[in-house]
């Protein structure tokens, strides 16, 4: 196990170094200068030059890269060009929205998908199965931003149960904050739940056809006992993979939903930073997301091992 962890750690570090280099170079290659963006089209050229100097944009490329990486290693993400506050502060504020939203959506999606998928697999080809499959087909097909707008229309504009968007902040109380994340979480969860339910169903059906399931039934277990004790655990591996992928997707990819509900999350931070050429923010958030994806993949690997002891021994 230790050797395995060590190997994983080295590959993780190498991925990060490669990612940092790629991110840095890509951001440098993008045309656009943060200083001229900030100063606008009526600006005095001397003032733009002074700002470039102040922001350290005149230093040579390798020096800036090394400075950035050295900062990262010490946990210093640098100072945002436009906001003029430490990037870590910006990220911390946004993570406090994006992460709970992701977990909320993931919890909702799992809570919907597991029962639906298990039910559909257990009663294969019944009316229940067909309606679950039909509903999930629809769930996969509906774009989540459209679904989000319908939610706003019904629950914010007409029923006025929720506000149309925005985030009151955690200071306003957990309930108020969770309430403002509810519609976005539902909008994010629906398509994910549909995918997950379909994966759950097909994985379970495959397992149910395995020889060991017949053995279990032959031992005298009822259908549902066999399903609970033997099939479910074996069917989990592909489901865990999907949940891991969904977590990364939701964390980084909530930008459209964040726009619809004007939530100040990570996605909007990156989007805004790209338009304003606040390169230092873009770089830092992207490397952080890369890091998150790598860590999640690692955790999913560990979860496989927990779900399937054979995987532990093989390593």
């Amino acid at each position, binding site marked *: 196990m230790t050797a395995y962890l060590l190997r994983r750690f080295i590959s993780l570090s190498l991925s990060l170094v490669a990612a940092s280099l790629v991110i840095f170079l890509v951001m440098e290659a993008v045309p656009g200068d943060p200083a001229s963006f900030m100063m606008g089209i009526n600006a005095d050229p001397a003032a733009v030059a002074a700002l470039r100097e102040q922001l350290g944009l005149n230093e040579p490329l390798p020096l800036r890269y090394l400075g950035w990486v050295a900062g990262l290693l010490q946990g210093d993400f640098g100072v945002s060009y436009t906001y003029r506050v430490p990037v870590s502060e910006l990220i911390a*504020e946004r993570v406090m929205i994006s992460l709970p939203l992701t977990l909320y959506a993931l919890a909702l999606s799992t809570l919907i998908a597991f029962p639906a998928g298990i039910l559909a697999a257990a009663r294969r080809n019944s009316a229940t199965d067909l309606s679950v499959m039909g509903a999930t087909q629809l769930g996969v097909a509906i774009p989540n931003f459209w679904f989000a707008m319908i939610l706003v229309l019904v629950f914010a504009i007409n029923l006025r149960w929720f506000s149309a968007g925005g985030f009151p902040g955690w200071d306003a109380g957990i309930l108020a904050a969770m309430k403002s994340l509810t519609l976005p979480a539902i909008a994010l969860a629906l398509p994910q739940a549909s995918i997950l339910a379909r994966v759950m169903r097909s994985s379970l059906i495959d397992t149910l056809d395995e020889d060991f399931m017949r053995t279990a039934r032959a031992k005298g277990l009822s259908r549902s006992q066999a399903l609970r004790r033997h099939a479910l655990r074996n069917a989990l591996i592909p489901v865990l993979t999907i949940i891991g992928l969904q977590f990364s997707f939701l964390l980084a990819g909530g930008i459209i939903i964040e726009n619809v509900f004007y939530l100040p999350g990570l996605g909007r931070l990156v989007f805004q930073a790209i338009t304003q050429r606040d390169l230092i923010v873009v770089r830092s958030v992207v490397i952080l997301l890369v890091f998150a994806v790598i860590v999640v993949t690692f955790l999913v690997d560990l979860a496989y091992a927990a779900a399937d002891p054979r995987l532990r021994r093989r390593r």
Partner: protein
Amino acid sequence: MTKYPMAAAAVSMLALGLGLGMTPAVAAKMDVSIGMQLEPPNLDPTGGAAAAIDEVVYANVFEGLTRFGPDGAILPGLAESWEISEDGLSYTFKLREGASFHDGSAFDAEDVKFSLDRARAEDSTNAQKALFADISSVEVVDPATVKVMLAKPNGSFLFNMAWGDAVIVATESADGNAANPVGTGPFKFSEWAKGDRVELERYADYWGEAVKLDQVTFKFISDPTAAFAAMMAGDLDAFPAFPAPENLTQFEADPRFEVIIGSSEGETILAMNNKKPPLDNIKVRQAITHAIDRQAIIDGAMFGYGTPIGTHFAPHNPAYVDLTGQSAHDPEKSRALLAEAGVSDLTLALKLPPPSYARRGGEIIAAQLREVGITAEITNVEWAQWLEDVFKAKNFDLTIVSHTEPMDIGIYGRDDYYFQYGDADFKAIMADLANATDPDARTELMQAAQKKIADDAVNAYLFQLARTGVANAKLKGLWPNSPTQANDMTGVSWEE
């Protein structure tokens, strides 16, 4: 910004059908939520050009020696009154007594000297440094009097001092204004939840008339559909520069809302690269101006909001001359001019920045140019790309931009400005204007400048951008026009 026109239309239609008959919740409100499309990058108006900075802090948090009134008139600000010497070279400002900064420190002449010297310093990062260029020295006469000496007379000096870039900041807090603005205005900064909102609250020790609101919240909603939903759901009280003109008729039909249509300082132009052949030929430029049907662009791209202009000047300015007739829509004449110039099969690169006036207007202009035999190749660019490629590198033939600074005709005198005009005669007019202090002479020179750039067909002048806003019908005192980019909340109140 991400947009979903189809879905937006569906939401709008449903909202119109279902949204009627709801009663707004009204109480003795002392707070107001204002929607803005763009978030300011920081809150220091002396360190950046973003309009969103002034839209939050101008007149609310920060004040200058003079200020713009709702109609664009120059009013006293932190300077109660002033005297101008005979030769126009010295301005003596009598300052407000009892004014203080939000951190409690007193406001006096030293702060004025510091602010002006800082803005015109060698290493200044003031985006409008040119406003201060004529200042030769700033003297503190006594704590309540400051004397500004100019190197040469400047008829627009008081106007210059009204800009958001010329506000007075305190020595102690100037460096922190980006994140924690400290000014002398009637509202003080209280919180900035980045990406979401900025909150201001009433400043109890304000020197002037007390404001009628306790709290002002500026909320940042970039998506037009979300902005629509937020107004409809009652989350916002006003959206002074509403991003989707197509939704305005729905607000008009709803008694809960008032639609506010005003003018802005945005001259929207089809800029041409004057040094790039064949656009260096005046006949080609004239041909382009005659190919354009302004009203069709206003109707098609701006849903009818906007005033046609024939030169780079705001129509609501008393010195404006209507020169639209000089470049009237005349495809025949346009083709004739192209033939005279010996140009055929002309293909031009039209680069369009993100705002809808450019993207939608660009499509229409391309179609109009096709009528006279010019092919416009459209490229959509982001702002940062536009600044790099068009503005700095001048790698374009045509582009559409709204120039939103007040009284910015002076850009035509700049060498190396992106449309590359910088004509010597025009510069002479500008120099005379700077020296003229007599109002009549100034008007005459401003009109001469307008005619000069129209005669030279430097750019094709399209329309003055309208300021289209939506507000709760009970909210009073919002500026209908925007003589400068601001949301002045000092006169805003809720109807009893």
